[in-house]
């Protein structure tokens, strides 16, 4: 398939708008060819993941574009970085790496990106509307944009996110196109108790199960309650994207392109149909833990970044209790959400209870956690999946209620009742 370009695309490719735009255009067109796209399309916004320092290559690329005078041409938000600019004292990392990470962040601001520093741009006030084309990177944001907002983005990775933002163009391929948004895999959830269906903890577990089952396919889930909340869909999507390569999912009765199973399938028969019962769900939950050690040292919440509602739930669960002196509790969120919870007086209450709020970054790849010796507990399947490899920690997955009770008790305690009767 040949990629046809607009006159302006070609001008830019030829370098007539400078070397930075030529580089950005070359990356977009080379990837478009790899995706077998026949044209490019206009985007209305971008969310950039390249601002996270992953090594010199990330900075080399940003420098090439920024030095060449590149600026973003559409409203562009920034993902987490490797630093918490609001709480710099939390960083235990190498000073030289911190300097490079900060330099990288500055370069993106110079190019006109909004310093939002959050992996949950869908929690910002302005978010893409149904049907709008955007170029988002960050796997949990991508899956949320497509599945929950009904906006259209392919699974973009570092570098092309910036190139799309600078050129305002993206390959007309993948999840931008109607046909590729239809489900091909049906996952039926059966025999799960009403009690468990109504618990937050079920949703990241279902996501962790969905990732390996779906791979890169678009799955549709049947059997979950109607009107699943955004926070639950967020946890489900983040887990499915981390453990598989899911860029979009449907939940019948909850996500905008799945009013019915038939609509999600586009009237076609399902390619694959998988039944998932409570045994599989319990096994999926167990796979998220790497240890039986109840010696709790750390609790990590907020992956993806907690919403206002989730921080409110944390305040409610803690009440007037304080976490155990041997346990460090971190809750990560975006600076916009943090500002909101400060206004509500919740930030002070959380701090008084012994919760360390983390902004701009996340605890599963940044050197923030002080004691990685015993067990870390999390309510995030994504955190549970990545942190053992990134940080060398042992992890126990539990509900946010389990995490709070454990943090107060100073040892791992989990409510097994909801699982035993699942």
């Amino acid at each position, binding site marked *: 398939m040949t990629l046809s370009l607009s006159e302006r695309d070609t001008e830019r490719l030829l370098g007539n708008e400078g070397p930075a735009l030529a580089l950005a255009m070359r990356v977009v067109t080379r990837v478009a060819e*790899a995706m077998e796209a026949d044209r490019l399309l206009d985007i209305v916004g971008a969310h950039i993941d390249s601002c996270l320092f992953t090594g010199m*290559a990330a900075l080399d*690329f940003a420098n090439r574009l920024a030095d060449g005078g590149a600026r973003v041409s559409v409203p562009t938000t920034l993902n987490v970085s490797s630093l918490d600019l609001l709480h710099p004292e939390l960083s235990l990392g190498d000073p030289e790496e911190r300097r490079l990470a900060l330099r990288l962040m500055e370069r993106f601001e110079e190019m006109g990106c909004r310093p939002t520093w959050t992996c949950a741009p869908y929690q910002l006030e302005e978010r893409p509307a149904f049907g709008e084309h955007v170029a988002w990177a960050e796997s949990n944001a991508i899956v949320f944009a497509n599945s929950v907002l009904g906006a259209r983005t392919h699974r973009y*990775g570092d570098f092309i996110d910036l190139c799309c933002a600078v050129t305002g163009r993206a390959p007309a391929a993948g999840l931008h196109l109607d046909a590729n948004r239809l489900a091909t895999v049906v996952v039926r959830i059966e025999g799960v108790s009403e009690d468990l269906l109504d618990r937050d903890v079920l949703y990241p577990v279902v996501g962790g199960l969905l990732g390996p089952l779906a791979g890169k396919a678009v799955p549709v889930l049947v059997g979950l309650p109607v009107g699943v909340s955004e926070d639950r869909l967020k946890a489900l999507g983040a887990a499915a994207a981390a453990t598989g390569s899911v860029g979009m999912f449907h939940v019948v009765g909850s996500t905008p392109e799945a009013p019915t199973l038939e609509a999600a399938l586009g009237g076609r028969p399902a390619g694959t149909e998988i039944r998932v019962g409570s045994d599989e769900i319990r096994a999926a939950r167990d796979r998220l833990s790497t240890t039986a050690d109840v010696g709790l040292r750390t609790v990590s919440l907020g992956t993806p970044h907690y919403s206002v509602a989730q921080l409110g739930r944390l305040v409610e669960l803690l009440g007037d209790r304080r976490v155990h002196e041997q346990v460090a509790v971190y809750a990560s969120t975006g600076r916009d959400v943090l500002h909101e919870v400060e206004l509500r007086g919740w930030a002070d209450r959380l701090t008084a209870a012994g919760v360390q709020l983390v902004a701009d970054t996340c605890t599963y790849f940044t050197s923030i956690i002080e004691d990685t010796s015993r067990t870390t507990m999390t309510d995030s399947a994504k955190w549970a999946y990545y942190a053992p490899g990134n940080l060398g920690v042992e992890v126990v997955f539990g509900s946010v209620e389990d995490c709070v009770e454990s943090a107060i008790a100073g040892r791992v305690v989990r409510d097994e009742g909801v699982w035993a009767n699942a």
Partner: protein
Amino acid sequence: MPDEVSPGLALEGRAMVPGEAQGDVLCLDEPLSFWGGLDPETGRITDRHHPQLDESVVGRVLVMPSGRGSSSASSALCEAIRAGTGPAAIVMAEPDEIIALGAVVADELYGRLVPVVVLAEGLDRLCTGVRCTVSDQMVIAYSDNRS
């Protein structure tokens, strides 16, 4: 089974990132996310859930079912190529644009081209240790040098 790898086995696929490379095959039983799954300083697999944990990808023709997970996989791959710890080529059963992207940017920034090829069929005939050449859409394996 070594007898499955005959000398000069030629497989034709689709080049996501066309180019020439050679190396010994490292076959992965499961998809790998380069970010969070590979240490770019050593080129070793660090994903604790991965069956090929601790294997080195340096200079290998990396054969795997597909990519996985994070959108930082492109910069992690690019960083490994910059640092000289990347694979020589990547061969997958399914296309993965994030991996292709990492290879494209490493070529643009450092002039180091790691070809990326999609083989819809025949991936299972490429066994770890076999010498292999990648040339655009062609993947050519030689006799099993362990036997």
